[in-house]
């Protein structure tokens, strides 16, 4: 009995695990195979999409070259397909969205975890999650039918008038060289995108903040810290990395958002510092122009899709990496 148990202690664990694996019922093995196949399928689809779209965009890549692709002229009537204006539009609207959404989202997350009691937090969470359920086409239609016509005379026009000629601010929110501000514009698109990414940034931030150990927080209170000092001293250092990850995920979503951006960005191919002017983004140009495109035009749109795909993958990988590193760091602490 004793010798037997000693053996079980040392080598027996591995042995019995192996035996268990061998004796696994058929159902288990089938399930494992199915799960593995499902996982591989997703990967395969991703790779196939990338391969086939890249293949179809070779005409564009080949004809325009790097300088052509990153030129600012998009003029299908004269066979000029430069994508820089769309890359600029995508970047600028996503950045506007993040700048507007992140402070609000983090504030809401802190409110929910640190300020209001749990039974009040739940309905608030519910309402914010509802924002994520609103289909993007509804955001877009609301943006172009209701928001843009309202905001132009009530906000954009007075702001542009007031800031005309003011250094820096005048270049961003003042009237552009091509005239008065426009309802559908870079800023409108950024604002709508901000609404759209608020739920995801909020819920991820809330989860990160919720992992702050209660004992640390109570320790801070015990040392006489106010709530603000506790948040700054304990919650913030602990969840900083996770929140950065949440922000990057929001950024990825904002960059890829298609139909809402297509409806409210104004569809004008230009690079300008004037955010109240109409612009264009990468997904928007694909959605708007694919239907009647052919030849190099079609190839160029698919190529923009490939660029966008790569861009969002990079941002997402970066986000995951930041989150993963942060989780490891905080576990170690």
């Amino acid at each position, binding site marked *: 009995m004793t010798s037997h148990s000693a053996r079980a202690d040392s080598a027996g664990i591995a042995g019995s695990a192996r035996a268990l694996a061998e004796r696994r019922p058929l159902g288990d093995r089938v399930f494992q195979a199915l799960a593995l196949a499902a996982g591989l399928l997703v990967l395969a689809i991703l790779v196939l999409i990338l391969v086939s779209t890249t293949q179809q965009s070779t005409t564009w890549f080949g004809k325009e070259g790097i300088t052509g692709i990153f030129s600012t*002229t*998009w*003029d*299908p*009537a*004269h066979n000029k397909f430069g994508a820089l204006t769309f890359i600029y539009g995508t970047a600028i609207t996503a950045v506007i969205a993040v700048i507007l959404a992140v402070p609000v989202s983090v504030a809401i997350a802190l409110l929910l975890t640190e300020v209001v009691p749990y039974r009040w937090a739940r309905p608030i969470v519910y309402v914010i999650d509802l924002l994520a359920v609103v289909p993007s*086409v509804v955001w*877009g*239609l609301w943006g172009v039918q209701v928001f843009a*016509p309202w905001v132009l005379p009530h906000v954009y026009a007075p702001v542009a008038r007031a800031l005309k000629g003011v250094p820096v601010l005048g270049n961003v929110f003042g009237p*552009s060289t*091509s*005239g008065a501000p*426009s309802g*559908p514009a870079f800023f409108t698109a950024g604002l709508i995108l901000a609404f759209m990414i608020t739920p995801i940034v909020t819920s991820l931030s809330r989860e990160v903040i919720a992992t702050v150990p209660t004992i640390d927080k109570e320790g801070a209170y015990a040392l006489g810290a106010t709530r603000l000092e506790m948040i700054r001293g304990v919650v913030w250092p602990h969840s900083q990395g996770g929140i950065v990850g949440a922000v990057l995920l929001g950024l990825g979503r904002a960059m890829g958002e298609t*139909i809402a951006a*297509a*409806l409210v960005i*104004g*569809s*004008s*191919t*230009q690079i300008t510092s004037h955010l109240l*002017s*109409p612009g264009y983004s990468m997904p928007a140009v694909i959605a*708007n*122009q*694919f*239907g*009647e*495109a*052919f*030849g*190099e*035009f*079609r190839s160029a749109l698919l190529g923009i899709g490939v660029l966008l795909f790569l861009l969002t993958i990079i941002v997402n990988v970066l986000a995951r990496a930041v989150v993963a590193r942060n989780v490891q760091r905080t576990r170690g602490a």
Partner: protein
Amino acid sequence: MQPRGRKRVAAGIGGIAALAVAVSLSACSSSPKPSGGSSPTAAPLTGTLNGAGSTFQTTFQQAAISQFKSVQSGMTVNYDPVGSGTGRSDLAAGTVNYAGSDSPIPSTETDFTGKGTVLYFPVVIGPITMSYNLAGVSNLKLDPTVIANIFQGKITTWNDPAITALNPGVSLPSQAITIAVRQDSSGTTQNFSLFLQTAVPSAWSLGSSSTISWPHSAHAGSGNSGVAQIIKSTPGAIGYVDLSTAHASGLTYASVKNSSGNYIAPSAASASASAAGVTVNPDLTFHAVWGSGAQAYPITYQSWVLVFEKQPNANDAKMLQAWIGYLLGDGQSLLPSLDYAKLPASIDQMAKAQLSKITG
């Protein structure tokens, strides 16, 4: 999303109109129709035809599909308005039986290389209006040069001497001009720009394409209805929209100077007149813009149904003959109520004569 939504509504209206026609047709079908030449042979066919392409054809296709049920009850026809370019590549890929296209296959499009002969069947003509929003001005006259300069951002106010010269006796305000254009790529844009390129090649430098690099001051809307909405809500706006949308939105539109020097308002009749005065190629491709003829409305465009000459089987060939035969025959009578124009008789005859080329 938005244009399709509107099309659905329009299709609904079309459906009602079609129903009314159906009722009147069935009322007179008790006596044998003497003009049976256009209606397909009575042999019942069964099967499904799938088409895709031009959004311009949507209301016509949908009205004709619901009508066609009474001609061939065993046949199902589906039409997906995905845009001409996508429709053509779907046809080349073999995923649809026919494509709707607002332009002939461009020489640079390689999808059809080595895939056999494609037949063109013109099915519909339509005018593009120059709709505008100017309080108190209801009879604006424009010529191609002025239109070209407005849409290139060279004429920026309504009381510009170039416009007032065309409109003696009309008091035009000093209001700024807002140009309304399509944000989606479109056959309407393609044919509007083709009109300017054909009529005033020296004044128009933006080329002709489904997407134009407009001046940055342009306001872009989605679909004909999106452009119409911009015009309606922006005093001083002018844009190009098809006639049915202009009517549905209650817009005012200009008379445009044609190649004979007359100012003509857009209508089904003046559009047909423009198409009647153009040169038709042996393969039935043509451009209805800038047609000759005293009563021709110059900004007129056309759309084709494209099919492969050689079909995979005899039944597909017969079904396509029946369906396209219907579009060219009785289907044409649906067009005026949908704000399209009928094909001129000469072109219609050429298209019908070509039906027998579809073989299985």
